[in-house]
């Protein structure tokens, strides 16, 4: 090889300069775009706060509402006061610590579901989009099957099987009915990436399909999936609340936002507004943060939006 290169007359031709002076990668561009966006900052700080509550609630509240003696029935529904700015829940637990410790149940499910749906969606979407033909037909039809089942109905039927509802069953059911849209998006994205010339170029180099998928297809197809997943994450938090409201989500003594909202729903109208408003505020702010984060990501990832 070196002799081949040595044969080159390196003198006599000038090096063309790249046109852009900013040495940014594509992701660098995205980062740059995000840094300039106040929506991104606000939403990502909120998301960090929420995540820390989910994974390390002890940082935010001293005692878990499930700890021995943490809740006293005498305090049930006590409204916010200076000493206890968040008041007490219907079960006489401190509302703030219930909300903080409830974050985990609500958010971790959403995160797990997001991870699950992304894994399933990316895998199946890639296979369907890249391999095409029979595999595509089968995957597309299976996607249709799950898609044809309305989400809430499907979840209700499914959750009826697992009376012991915990993070895992909720994750399973939400994943089961959440993967379809990501698969479809990924499939479409892979199909368009597959047609890109650089894929042809790699094939011309003799790259194997696996190599091409790994190096080119995945990286270039996943952006819309990421955006959709972020928005989905917010939606799953909301979904947990709805399922709990319908009586197929978490059950006491678990603490989750959905449970608190469902519980506060009627009590609020009886005058205990804090029981509804506070958990709702947590859900809304969280969902809002994730959706706005997804929006910011989408804007940053979409070159046309610039």
């Amino acid at each position: 090889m070196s002799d081949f290169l040595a044969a080159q007359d390196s003198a006599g031709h000038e090096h063309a300069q790249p046109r852009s002076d900013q040495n940014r990668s594509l992701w660098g561009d995205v980062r740059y775009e995000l840094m300039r966006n106040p929506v991104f900052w606000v939403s990502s700080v909120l998301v960090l706060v929420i995540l820390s509550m989910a994974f390390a609630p002890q940082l935010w509240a001293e005692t878990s509402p499930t700890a021995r003696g943490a809740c006293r029935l005498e305090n049930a529904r006590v409204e916010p006061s200076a000493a206890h700015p968040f008041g007490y829940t219907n079960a006489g637990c401190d509302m703030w610590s219930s909300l903080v410790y409830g974050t985990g149940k609500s958010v971790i499910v959403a995160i797990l579901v997001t991870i699950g749906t992304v894994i399933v969606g990316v895998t199946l979407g890639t296979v369907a989009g890249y391999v095409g033909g029979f595999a595509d037909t089968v995957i597309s039809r299976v996607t249709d099957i799950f898609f044809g089942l309305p989400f809430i109905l499907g979840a209700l039927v499914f959750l009826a099987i697992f009376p012991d509802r915990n993070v895992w069953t909720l994750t399973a059911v939400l994943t089961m009915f959440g993967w379809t849209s990501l698969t479809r998006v990924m499939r479409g994205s892979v199909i368009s990436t597959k047609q890109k010339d650089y894929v042809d170029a790699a094939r011309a180099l003799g790259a194997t399909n696996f190599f091409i998928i790994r190096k080119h297809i995945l990286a270039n197809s996943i952006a819309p999936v990421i955006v959709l997943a972020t928005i989905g994450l917010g939606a799953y938090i909301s979904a947990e609340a709805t399922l709990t409201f319908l009586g197929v989500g978490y059950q006491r003594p678990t603490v989750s936002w959905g449970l608190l909202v469902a519980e506060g729903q009627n009590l609020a109208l009886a005058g205990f507004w804090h029981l509804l408003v506070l958990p709702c505020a947590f859900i809304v702010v969280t969902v809002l943060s994730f959706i706005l984060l997804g929006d910011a990501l989408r804007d940053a990832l979409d070159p046309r939006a610039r």
Partner: protein
Amino acid sequence: MGRYVARRLVQFIPVILGTLFLLHVLSVLTIQIVGDPVRALFGENAPPEAILEQLRANYNLDDDCLEQTGNPCVRLFVDRLAQYASGDFGINFRGRSVAELFVERFPVTVRLTVIALVFETVVGIFLGVMAGLRKDKLVDNFVRFSTVLLIAFPVFVFGTLAQLFIGLELGLPLRDSERAPEWLGQMLTVTYNPEFPWLSLMLPGLVLGAFSLAAIARLTRTSLIENLRSDYVRTARAKGLTSSRTVGVHTLRNSLIPVVTYIGIDIGLLLGGALVTEGIFNIPGVGQLVFLAIQANDTPVILGVVTILTVVFLVANLLVDILYAALDPRIRYE
């Protein structure tokens, strides 16, 4: 076009069979894991075994495979398919024909869905267009924020608030008033009223459509902004057309293509997902029917109704696809 429809129809078959089988397996598992739904009809006071057995036989729940956890009971599935093929969707635990139940409730849900669809489409597209035309302006940010809020609020909270503040605070005085027209009061009702089958579904329809309204507004906005940048909009301007015509005729129709796709999906979500709204506003619709059936492990209803719903959903999707083809001639002549 005919070919396109035919192909879509043929694609239905495996999807419907698949959905049916999926449901079947889920319901079989429910019985196997959770327990005998017939026994659950009676409470702490267990009835004579002979009666339970008779009931199990009545509801086709006496197969041995229902005792073996994990057994998919394929034979039951085949029987059921044959039964469905003859138009028999079984009876529920109250001895009523599932098909009849569905027919009774379906019109209500359809009305609700139609109202929600019209509302979300009209308002959603309007908001989306407003936001898209004034990108990054106040209107845009307002629409953006409020739509996200609609998405973030769990529907049951939203429904209750609407019921209280619109239905009671606003609607009740109207209904009590001598001067206000009756239809106005009925539009702002708190519960379904069979005497006003459309008007009393207005408020629930709005609640039901709120989530999708947000989605449609956002979709329209994105799509409109994208299309406004397209060459043919430039052409329309070069043709000396007014800006309202440029947007209203040349951009909007193209922008609605993804919206129409979404609506196709949404029909399914609305049909099946209406149960929360139906519960809050006491609407005897299909969603509620299924929900109650799930609570009671009323397998024949779950299977029968969800099957019909799936078919309806698929048909709705087909119609949307045809509409899609009507909007986009490039699809039509494929």
